[in-house]
């Protein structure tokens, strides 16, 4: 859902885009099973006090302490309070039968049904030993209940370091309401980090209804539902091709800055795959390495593997190194095996590394980039390497600015019968951005110089390579002036006062024509045009083609803002008018009928977002080819929301297939998602995506979830089309569909047994409109 925010300063409501996005937490939950946490919480955890952060800004050692009791016996070295003793300090309070205060060490020891509460956790203990100036507290024979969440349990000893980190010895932990022993985890040592919402336990025994079910030497698990990465539970599934699948992650804590997860996965029809993920945080940088290996897949009759490595390092305050490398053994890896590193529909893997040096007004970068492409179509060029240098120099005339961009790139290709080349590109730019209260005028003048050296010795793949030449140069200026004005008026509709903004924009762009057919195509393609894209100064990405232009761009965007400052309607329309048609195009060497563009106007681009009062949302985006009046691309989304996260969404996406594009670059997809919270326990959900032309379903999921206070059962049936790498004429009869049946049992606050996210839709739920 492309969102055309006005690209010019306009008078917005003062509550500018302030995202009161309380859905952000639920958005992280799996799409289908979001639940209204507030409603659920009230239902299950009525007794749990809310979490109260310490409003007191004074550090703990400056907060006065009040102690009162029936009796007090005091000598300078200690004060002994007895009978119904009560101590308060800031928002912390403690009550006990007897309390001894040692003023020298600022320490207290409370004995006899001690009750301690600091807004984050309530603790009952036999003995509490607390350091008053550092908040460090040790509790013996304690029961605890966290505030604001289900976490509760008991422990022989609890050590609270005063900074929301608790160490529990011989403890039990559960997120079930009191009296509900559905599950609990006993462990010899348990660390609870109340800030990071994670717990890590040693020698952990999971008990279901007090029956020990599961032992793990070491586990970490989330203690809030914000993050859905489940405990490392076995997950199982029944899939039509893989058969019964069981995987059990094993967590290894190597050192405090290194850990790993080994996940064996048994697939009935394929064999057992072993996946290992190693995460590290060193001074030489942080990152992770993932390896997946399936020895001789019984269906595929070959061994299959994936490896991934990402690394990030910033050093000496200006240097940054980034690496992201992915590789799979065969084209069908993603369709056959579930992995974190590629959706079942992914067909390209990025392999890139870059070293960047950043200064205040200049920066330089060395980058290598390549891709592994699945399927047997064309593959892109590789950048081995690219060295770029950029500088930004403000000049002292108003906001005049001189920018310099230069790069030298060497392109290689895996095929042996194509051209390769090296390109030097230099681009000084002089710009004068002027911003007034309700008007802006940006003027830019660029001069682009490019030098190519191309190796055509074995470029024999396509006959049209003969247009290329060994060396080519190109000198092109580009001039752009872009302005916009903010208008505003108040409008009363159905007798309440709306504010309407209107922001017209106009841009003139001139780039002379220069024949560039001698230059090969390495990293240029025609870019998709949405409202923002109308104001670009080159229609093509990369630098191998610079479009000639003598055009004016008109754009207008308007929004209607209701009295509460919310944007209710947003409309944006724009179009380019060519004084002379742009002749440059990106040739497709495999086709011979490339011809330049003769249109006098670009397509009319428009986008509309409406948020009706009663929770209806509508979005539409259209690109109409105004010369032939044909629809180039369009997308529509309609959604209705009810309470408790019940919603129904219908969306349609269309991308016309221009005659010369291959058959598989077409989109004509209808999709729907429904999430129906029938009552506070039962939720049913549906996700269905369908191709209108070829009449096959990309995905159809239907599911039911029963959610109790601290556990949930999720039953879903998922049938989806596998990525098809064959030819067009045989797609109708030879594409394959995978049918999965999933049952998973989820311990709320601990993640899932079985596929923890339950609804594995390829299409994540997205708020189709940012208008809240």
């Amino acid at each position, binding site marked *: *859902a492309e969102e055309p925010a006005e690209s010019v*300063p306009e008078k917005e409501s003062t509550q500018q885009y302030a995202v009161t996005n309380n859905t952000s937490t639920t958005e992280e939950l799996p799409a289908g099973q979001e639940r209204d946490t507030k409603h659920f919480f009230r239902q299950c955890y009525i007794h749990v006090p809310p979490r109260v952060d310490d409003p007191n800004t004074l550090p703990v050692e400056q907060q006065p302490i009040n102690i009162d009791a029936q009796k007090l016996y005091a000598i300078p070295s200690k004060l002994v309070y007895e009978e119904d003793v009560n101590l308060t300090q800031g928002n912390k309070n403690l009550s006990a039968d007897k309390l001894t205060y040692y003023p020298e060490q600022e320490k207290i020891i409370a004995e006899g049904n001690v009750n301690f509460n600091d807004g984050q956790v309530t603790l009952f203990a036999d003995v509490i030993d607390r350091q008053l100036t550092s908040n460090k507290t040790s509790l013996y024979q304690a029961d605890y209940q966290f505030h604001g969440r289900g976490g509760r349990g008991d422990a022989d000893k609890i050590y609270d370091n005063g900074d929301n980190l608790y160490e529990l010895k011989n403890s039990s932990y559960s997120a079930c309401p009191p009296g509900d022993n559905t599950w609990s985890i006993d462990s010899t040592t348990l660390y609870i980090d109340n800030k990071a919402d994670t717990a890590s336990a040693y020698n952990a025994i999971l008990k279901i209804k007090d029956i020990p079910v599961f032992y793990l030497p070491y586990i970490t698990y989330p203690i809030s539902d914000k993050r859905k990465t489940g405990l490392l539970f076995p997950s199982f599934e029944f899939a039509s091709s893989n058969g019964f699948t069981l995987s059990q992650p094993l967590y290894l804590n190597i050192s405090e800055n290194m850990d790993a997860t080994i996940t064996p996965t048994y697939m009935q029809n394929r064999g057992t795959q072993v996946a290992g993920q190693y995460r590290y945080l060193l001074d030489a940088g942080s990152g992770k390495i993932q390896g997946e290996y399936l020895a001789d897949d019984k269906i595929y009759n070959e061994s299959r593997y994936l490896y991934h490595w990402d690394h990030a390092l910033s050093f000496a305050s200006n240097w940054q190194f980034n690496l992201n490398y992915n590789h799979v053994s065969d084209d069908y890896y993603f369709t056959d095996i579930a992995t974190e590193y590629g959706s079942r529909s992914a067909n390209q893997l990025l392999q890139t590394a870059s070293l960047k040096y950043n200064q205040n007004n200049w920066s330089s970068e060395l980058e290598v980039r390549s891709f592994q492409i699945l399927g047997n179509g*064309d593959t892109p060029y590789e950048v081995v390497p690219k060295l770029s240098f950029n500088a930004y120099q403000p000049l002292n005339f108003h906001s005049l600015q001189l920018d310099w961009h230069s790069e030298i790139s060497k392109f290689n290709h895996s095929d042996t019968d194509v051209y390769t080349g090296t390109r030097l590109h230099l681009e000084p730019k002089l710009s004068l951005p002027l911003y007034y209260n309700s008007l802006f005028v*940006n003027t830019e003048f660029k001069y682009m110089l490019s030098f190519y050296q191309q190796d055509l010795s074995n470029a024999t793949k396509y006959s049209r390579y003969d247009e290329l030449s060994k060396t080519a140069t190109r000198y092109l200026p580009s001039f752009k002036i872009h302005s916009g004005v903010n208008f505003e008026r108040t409008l009363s509709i159905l007798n309440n006062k709306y504010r309407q903004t209107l922001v017209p924009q106009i841009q003139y762009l001139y780039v002379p024509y220069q024949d560039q057919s001698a230059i090969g195509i390495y990293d240029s393609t025609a870019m998709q045009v949405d409202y923002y894209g109308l104001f670009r100064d080159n229609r093509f990405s990369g630098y191998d083609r610079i479009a000639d232009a003598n055009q004016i761009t008109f754009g207008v965007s308007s929004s209607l803002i209701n009295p509460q400052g919310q944007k209710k309607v947003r409309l944006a329309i724009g179009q380019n008018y060519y004084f002379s048609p742009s002749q440059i195009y990106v040739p497709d060497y495999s086709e011979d009928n490339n011809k330049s563009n003769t249109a006098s106007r670009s397509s009319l681009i428009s986008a509309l977002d409406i948020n009706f009062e009663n929770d209806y949302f509508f979005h539409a985006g259209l690109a109409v080819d105004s010369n032939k009046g044909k629809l180039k691309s369009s997308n529509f989304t309609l959604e209705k929301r009810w309470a408790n996260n019940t919603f129904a969404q219908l969306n349609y996406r269309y991308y016309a297939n221009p005659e010369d594009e291959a058959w598989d670059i077409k989109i004509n997809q209808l999709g729907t998602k429904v999430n129906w919270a029938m009552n506070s326990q039962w939720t049913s959900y549906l996700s269905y995506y369908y191709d209108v032309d070829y009449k096959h379903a990309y995905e159809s999921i239907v599911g039911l979830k029963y959610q109790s206070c601290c556990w949930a059962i999720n039953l879903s049936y998922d049938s989806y089309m596998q990525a098809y790498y064959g030819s067009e004429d045989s797609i109708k009869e030879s594409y394959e569909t995978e049918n999965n049946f999933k049952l998973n049992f989820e311990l709320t606050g601990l993640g899932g047994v079985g596929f923890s996210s339950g609804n594995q839709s390829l299409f994540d739920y*997205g708020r189709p409109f940012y208008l809240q």
Partner: protein
Amino acid sequence: CGFHLKNNNGLIEKYPKIYLQSNDTNGQLARFIKIRLRGAGIQIMNQPEANVAILKVSPDRQSSRIISLYVNAQNAEKEISYNVNYSIQSPGYQTQDFSVNLYRDFTENASQALAKSREAEILTKELRGIAADSIIATMLSLENKK
């Protein structure tokens, strides 16, 4: 039709000087914001000073989700979402927090993966420009609360 130029008190009257606080001051977004501040004639301080407004910009975040497939069930369009949180603190007034959320569609094409990855870089650059515009627009229309 009732439209008039939006002419509340100007940017420079409100913020003659400003300190831009960001942990990636050499990054693209910070540079775009500085260009617009200079374009409006505002003096940018290089460290915080008494009664100088503070514009604090946290690192921007991007994510993408699959929204459509090609006929052969391979990835077609993705929705790129861009988010940046920032706060404005005029001297003597409360700090006010804002965020910018922008969404754009991006069509993938494996055979032109390199060119498409350069297109993605241009989309991000344009999104950062729009985010910078929207930050300036907020500064302009901000009524300070005591």
